[in-house]
């Protein structure tokens, strides 16, 4: 029995840490593929809403953490952006995927598929048998 709160806290913080590590690894891939699908440049809040709409439970990725990732993708040349004034307040930064971003997205998607298949295989226990 998990009688003590301390144990519960520890489990929770370990869970949170694991989730954070998982998510931070794929955040760039998620953003890149959303912008890869988009037909028009999108701004941060728009992207956050798309993610919100697709996450079934509570969103795993904090919306505010998307912006630094967008920025770092931009500075590696995978995205480009421009600023447009908006009617409702501060100007918005619109992001669009670049050609380099598209090819990177294709490569990363392949890597992701590979990793997913691998993890699935391991977790289903296939190949664990003594003689295959």
């Amino acid at each position: 029995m998990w009688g003590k709160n301390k144990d519960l806290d520890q489990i929770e913080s370990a869970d949170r840490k694991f989730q954070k590590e998982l998510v931070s690894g794929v955040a760039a891939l998620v953003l890149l593929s959303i912008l890869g699908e988009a037909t028009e440049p999108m701004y941060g809040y728009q992207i956050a809403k798309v993610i919100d709409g697709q996450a079934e439970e509570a969103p795993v990725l904090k919306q505010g953490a998307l912006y630094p990732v967008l920025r770092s993708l931009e500075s590696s040349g995978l995205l480009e952006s421009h600023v447009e004034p908006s009617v409702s307040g501060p100007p918005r930064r619109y992001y669009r995927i670049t050609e380099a971003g598209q090819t990177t997205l294709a490569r990363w998607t392949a890597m992701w598929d590979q990793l997913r298949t691998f993890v699935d295989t391991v977790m289903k226990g296939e190949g664990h048998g003594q003689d295959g």
Partner: protein
Amino acid sequence: MVRTVDEYLRLLRQELDGSDPAVIQDALADAEEHFRGALAQALNGSPGASEADVVPAIAEKYGSPQEIAAAYRQMEARLSPGLGRRTHAGPRSVFYRFFGVFADLRAWAALLYFVLSLATGIAYFTWAVTGLSLSLGLLVLIVGLPVAVLFLLSVRGIAFIEGRLVEALLGVRMPRRPRFSNEKTGFWQRIRDLFTQRITWTALAYCILQLGLGIFYFSLFTGLIGMAVYFIALPITVFAFDMPAYIVIGDTEYQAVTWAIPFLVVLGVLLLTATMHLARLMGRGHGALAKLMLVNDKAR
């Protein structure tokens, strides 16, 4: 519990305390863009609600100021600004440390900046002086105020553009997006801000100062490089084109004797290398000056 956008921004600024001012400015801009967008939508959806009703939920989704500050710090640690590719770390021979400067993009970029600074200096100065005299001259009339406002806005624009140039060529982190005022700030308040914020005036001073600095940088570096190239090219000019190796110091002309020419070539190479070092060093200095005068310290 965060109840207003301004409060969140204040907390985020607090969390980022000690980070690069330009990072702070970017992080605050991102957060404000997001919060204002989300707030406008939430208030549209439920007309009766107030800011304090919806902001907590927005902040919850956005992430706590601590988390977000950490995300920006992490990103900043991974990215180095501009031509940030530093040449190899680790111990190197004295020879490499001296001549390796030619392999350092930063030194070349700084040199380019200093040569360009004459042109940008003239442009900024002309614009600043024209705008300043036009605004001051027209201030006795009612049209003077709008002219002055437009002029000061243009100076802020120049500050941003010069900031981009400084980051790209001198590698000093500068704001990557223009500043904007708070949405709630009224029209007159914005104009008042324009006049009262330190950065407007330091940017204006920078525009004027840049002419003097530009002339100095340009003559210093073209002079030094010209001299170095002349020394290095002496064997060609003396032996191939039969031109005497003259150096004029004051009223006296010195002609280099033939045996001195190899030494002068070596001197030229050393001078060129030293010039590259000087460019890199002064690039850092000018970058610091630009940051001081062109970045809003309110972001600190």
